[in-house]
């Protein structure tokens, strides 16, 4: 290509870009609120990122053309995250949700550069003038799942596929063990760490390894439905994580602990539109509709289902709290005496196992 032609092309392209930019400005006189979402996984993971995307869709359904949503999926938690968040802010997004723990520091760095953009970071602990956090209390659902597992297991061996030994994951393992301690102390909880949030291959391997050891109910704190499928093939039970995984193993699927981000996203969009948004740490659970158990498997005995539903009702009205004392640690020392309980601030830093778990937290 000759230089002159090339120059012409470049000028043409540049003019085109300017024109599109101009036209988009004039069309959007009504100025919808642009809302950006950054996902750590692919939206097709049928777990964590998928559920956040469902939340994004419910924002679109609720606000129609008053909002315009954008997402970027599979964003690595390293140097790339900051660029993606920056580009969202730069392209006029006024509210940005960063949906994974590893986006915490990149979010704060970009937030400093864009003081008029609101940021909300999921599962982190650092805040700023324009950065709030949000997390859901998955342990409530996990406790109910632990109860159901304790009732349906025949081998008294329950498996748990865990991702990373951070407080959020450890506290959910503890919630399951506390349910076992209460409802079936004979049952043993086996934990396998796969060091990944989403790795269908490893998750399936972990599930199979545990079933080989006699495990007949599998819980997971990872995002793919691989374990559900593996359990279904071998006629065992599994509990879905983050999204409703019933379609991946109709026979294996006891229940799913589903994250519903929609209510939180809709509230946040509302408060940003009204100008009432303030940075805070949002902790939401069953009461707020952020944690949902949509269905129970038909093969679960009716009395178990009805007690599970009572537990859910109790968690909603506050009469049931998984981390109410007495709670002993793995060594058998009484950490939370009868009558007191662990606060959310305690749970946020939890790095110890409760009594009954045989293995150790990986160091």
């Amino acid at each position: 290509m000759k230089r002159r032609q090339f120059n012409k092309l470049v000028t043409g392209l540049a003019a085109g870009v300017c024109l599109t930019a101009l036209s988009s400005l004039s069309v959007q006189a009504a100025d919808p609120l642009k809302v950006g979402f950054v996902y750590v996984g692919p939206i097709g993971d049928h777990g964590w990122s998928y559920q956040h995307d469902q939340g994004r869709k419910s924002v679109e359904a609720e606000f129609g053309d008053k909002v315009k949503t954008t997402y970027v999926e599979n964003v690595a938690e390293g140097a790339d995250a900051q660029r993606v968040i920056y580009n969202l802010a730069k392209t006029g997004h006024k509210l940005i949700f960063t949906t994974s723990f590893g986006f915490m520091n990149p979010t704060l760095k970009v937030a400093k550069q864009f003081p008029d953009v609101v940021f909300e970071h999921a599962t982190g602990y650092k805040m700023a003038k324009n950065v709030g956090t949000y997390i859901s209390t998955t342990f409530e659902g996990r406790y109910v799942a632990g109860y159901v597992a304790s009732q349906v297991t025949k081998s008294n061996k329950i498996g748990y596929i865990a991702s990373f030994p951070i407080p959020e994951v450890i506290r959910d393992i503890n919630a399951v063990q506390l349910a076992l301690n209460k409802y079936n102390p004979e049952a043993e909880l086996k934990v396998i760490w796969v060091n990944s949030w989403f790795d269908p291959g490893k998750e399936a391997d972990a599930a199979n390894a545990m079933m080989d050891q006699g495990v007949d109910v599998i819980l997971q704190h990872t995002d793919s439905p691989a374990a559900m499928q593996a359990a279904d093939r071998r006629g065992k039970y599994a509990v879905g994580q983050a999204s409703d995984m019933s379609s991946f193993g109709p026979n294996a699927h006891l229940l799913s602990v589903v994250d519903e981000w929609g209510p939180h996203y809709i509230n946040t969009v509302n408060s940003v539109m009204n100008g009432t948004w303030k940075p805070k740490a949002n902790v939401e659970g069953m009461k707020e509709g952020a944690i949902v158990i949509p269905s129970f498997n038909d093969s679960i005995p009716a009395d178990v289902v009805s007690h599970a539903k009572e537990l859910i009702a109790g968690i909603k009205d506050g009469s049931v709290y998984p981390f109410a004392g007495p709670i002993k640690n793995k060594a058998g020392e009484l950490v939370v005496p009868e009558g007191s309980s662990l606060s959310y601030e305690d749970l946020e830093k939890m790095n110890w196992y409760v009594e009954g778990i045989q293995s150790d937290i990986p160091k």
Partner: protein
Amino acid sequence: MIKLEPRGERSSTMAYLSPVLAAVLTMLTGLVVFTLLGVDPVEALITILYVPISDTHGLAELCVKTAPILLCAIGLSVAFKAKIWNIGAEGQLLMGGLFGSYIALQLIEAEGFWVLPLVLIAGALGGMVWSGIAAILKVRFNTNEILTTIMMNYIALNVLLWAVHGPLKDPEGYNFPESALFGESALLPILIDNTRVHFGMALALFAVVAVWVLMSRSFYGFQIKVMGMDAGAARLSGFKEKRLAYFALLLSGGLAGLAGVGEVAGPIGQLIPQISPGYGYAAIIVAFLGRLHPVGILLASLLMALLYMGGEMAQISLGLPLALTGMFQGMLLFYLLACDVLISFRIRLKPKKITPTPPSILASDTQG
């Protein structure tokens, strides 16, 4: 009928033209795919290839993304020239990040110009230690370096995870797997204000020049090339094969380690579990895409970085799926490999008429 015919001699014209041809074919296929997806193809190509680098900030980000890929790839090119297949740049990068982070965290309160060089040297050493293990195994025990380096990647990742979940974890970080933020003096200086482009890019460019001088102007580089082309000839000429193998592996490991420490002491600013989204693997592709030539590698790593950024931009402004980036990269490589056939072969549209020799003459020839 189309027929491939050996050229006999490698065509140097095609060696240069093949990447261009591959790029053009990728663009054309891209146009078709975008049209099928219902997106204005011209707008899509502009969004992917131009918008991400349309301003200073974008260009700076391109450098941020390029630096680690370039450092890894330029190191690998030396090893690959010697036909030493170091697939372990990823692990060497991670170890570089880990070693560098360790020093940075020990010196978190320290101030002074000497902190950063120490951190960088530690990073390079980390990479060299990791590739050095593979070098010892290769030279001493004749172990296949493809297997050892690739397996060392997984070990490196797990060592890194252990460190970041354990000893190097931020004591005030609520038990989350990341280190404390590094002190100011351990961070790479920013080259352009208000951007993230850091000294690592300068290091990478320096490495490109240094490797170019090494490979085309020094006797050592000559020996490496000879060893790659014909190990027997190198041995006969008295070249020290073992020493060259150590050199190639340590150099590529050191540069990958530098890439790793450049990430943690650059844009990230702390040790986290995921410091590389696979730069070490991308570098293998880049090294070959760039024909193992320093300038080619520079261009290829810029292109690779741009494709990543373009993929993000296509998601942000056009709502196109991420899979498209992967497809774009895949297409580019596919076409490049396909076009490379033309270096050693030419296409004949009509088969050359081969006049069959009468068997009788053949027979009489053998008899005679």
